[in-house]
């Protein structure tokens, strides 16, 4: 069985596996996105817009091209502006920073999970719902006895309504249960059934959806930019232009001036 993904909430391995930016703590879908983020946000020359690979590279560029010195990394968290660490993607992140980031992610993850559980009343993934009514397993004799009892009640008429009413109220998912010869298939284990989602629950997944949307858009934009660049360079090499005007000796003005419409009678 493959990994099951549900609810839009990634599991802790997924979260810990995401590359993130040392300078601003933002995390990304993959390393390529992280690197392009760093080049655009932290290693971009504000004089000429050139995107360098590292802070050191930017420092050398500023020094050589613009005769300036790089003081700090742009757009970085206050304690991460230093030039002493050489960062490229996830490389070069000091071990203690890696560890504290990791532990903070783990803490946040379990905190969020707990918050969700409190907000929705849903069980944590992988745990069975303790509040759910246990399905009692009856022997054939017990079942038959119960059926007989139920038929008895049905014969008596009015009581039936009472029975269904109580069943529906106590476990709505099993409203059909009383009809012994028509038992519904059991819901898959672990999936809470019959419980409508509480309104409060909507908030968390929505926020996550928006994040996902943004990330997907980012990824797409990055891919598009890449494609466009590739196309442009291809065009340069392969395609030959067709010139709208290709006379190497006579300018368009000379041609126009030669037209009868504009010809000046040189009588004067």
């Amino acid at each position, binding site marked *: 069985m493959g990994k099951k993904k549900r609810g839009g909430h990634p599991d802790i391995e997924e979260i810990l596996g995401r590359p993130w930016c040392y300078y601003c703590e933002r995390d990304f879908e993959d390393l390529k996105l992280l690197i392009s983020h760093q080049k655009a946000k932290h290693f971009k020359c504000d004089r000429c817009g050139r995107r360098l690979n590292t802070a050191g590279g930017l420092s050398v560029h500023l020094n050589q091209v613009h005769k300036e010195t790089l003081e700090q990394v742009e757009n970085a968290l206050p304690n991460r502006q230093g030039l002493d660490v050489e960062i490229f993607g996830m490389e070069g992140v000091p071990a203690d920073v890696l560890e504290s980031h990791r532990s903070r992610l783990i803490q946040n993850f379990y905190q969020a999970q707990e918050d969700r559980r409190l907000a929705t009343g849903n069980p944590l993934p992988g745990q069975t719902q303790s509040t759910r009514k246990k399905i009692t397993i009856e022997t054939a004799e017990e079942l038959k006895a119960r059926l007989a009892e139920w038929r008895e009640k049905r014969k008596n008429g009015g009581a039936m309504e009472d029975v269904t009413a109580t069943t529906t109220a106590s476990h709505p998912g099993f409203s059909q249960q009383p009809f012994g010869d028509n038992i519904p298939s059991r819901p898959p284990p672990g999936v809470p059934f019959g419980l409508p989602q509480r309104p409060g629950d909507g908030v968390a997944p929505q926020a996550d959806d928006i994040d996902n949307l943004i990330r997907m858009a980012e990824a797409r934009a990055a891919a598009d930019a890449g494609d466009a660049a590739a196309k442009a360079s291809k065009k340069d090499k392969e395609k030959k232009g067709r010139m709208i005007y290709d006379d190497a000796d006579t300018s368009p003005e000379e041609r126009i001036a030669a037209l009868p419409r504009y010809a*000046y009678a040189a009588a004067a």
Partner: protein
Amino acid sequence: MAPALQFEDLVPPPGDAVTALKFAPTSSSKLLVSSWDTNVYLYDIAQTEINQSPLITKFKHQAPVLDVCFGDDDSVAYTASADRCVNRIDLETGQISVLSKHGAIACAVVYSAAHGILVSAAWDSTLHIHNIRDPSSSPVRVALPGKPHALAISPSKMVVAMTGRIINIYDLNAMRDLLSAGGGDLKPWQQRESSLRYLTRAVACMPNDAGYATSSIEGRVAVEWFEDTAESQARKYAFKCHRQPAPDGDGDIVYPVNALVFNPVHGTFASGGGDSSIALWDAEAKRRLRQYLKLPNNVAAMDFSNDGKYFAIATCPGFETGQEDYSGAGLTNVQFRILGDNEAKGKSSK
């Protein structure tokens, strides 16, 4: 970078295709437009702000007017016309007088206020150098090695682009010495081969007197520096622009780059092409700053006002190889926009 940048029309437009468009040296809102319909139009953009017609007046010539430039102040203009004449217009009285006559159609005029020199170029491969400070003197004729197509002037130099990819750079001080000597031979300060393979279409000089840009009929712009040192010459470069992918997907359609003009304030430059688009470039940083929204027609001429506030353009149908007839009547527009503070500012000059 916002691409949706609109231009406003100046109404009424010229009666036929535009050959040149120049802002006045003093007032930033006045401009002259020369046209194939034999008129030179004087507009004042400021009039549109008080809901008046921006067209102040027009000056009728004997023949189509191929170029126009202002003189020392906003009241004098010079024109080059198809009747081979170089004319002086008194913009206040409307009086037109002929300064000199070439052997063929006069195609360009430039004026240096600092030197009091008016230079005209004609298709008989000559330049006429006029001493405006001494109206009684006759112009000095200088032979060119090729047919001139574009003239541009910087504070100290004049660039002439000719057929055969020849580019001559003249020193304006040498020109003044020539005038005071009353004639003689004027040697170019430098003669260069164009960096572009095809016919030069436009030339514009950097306002800081450091160099110039040229454009060709083959969708390309080159930027070069005057200084004749190995380092300076190594800095020159050319790039492709004003091209569109062909509709059938096979190659590009390459348009001529008809107009080049530097922004006097920021030192960036604009290029206008047959693809009906205008782009702003930072020559130093080698970057495109912005591309304006597609215009209805081929860009024929452009200019920035002296204070960099206004950017005016003229559009009319483009002329294509093999075209039998041509008319810009009814399809010509003069448009302007007020530049934002940083619109034409180079990225490097932050």
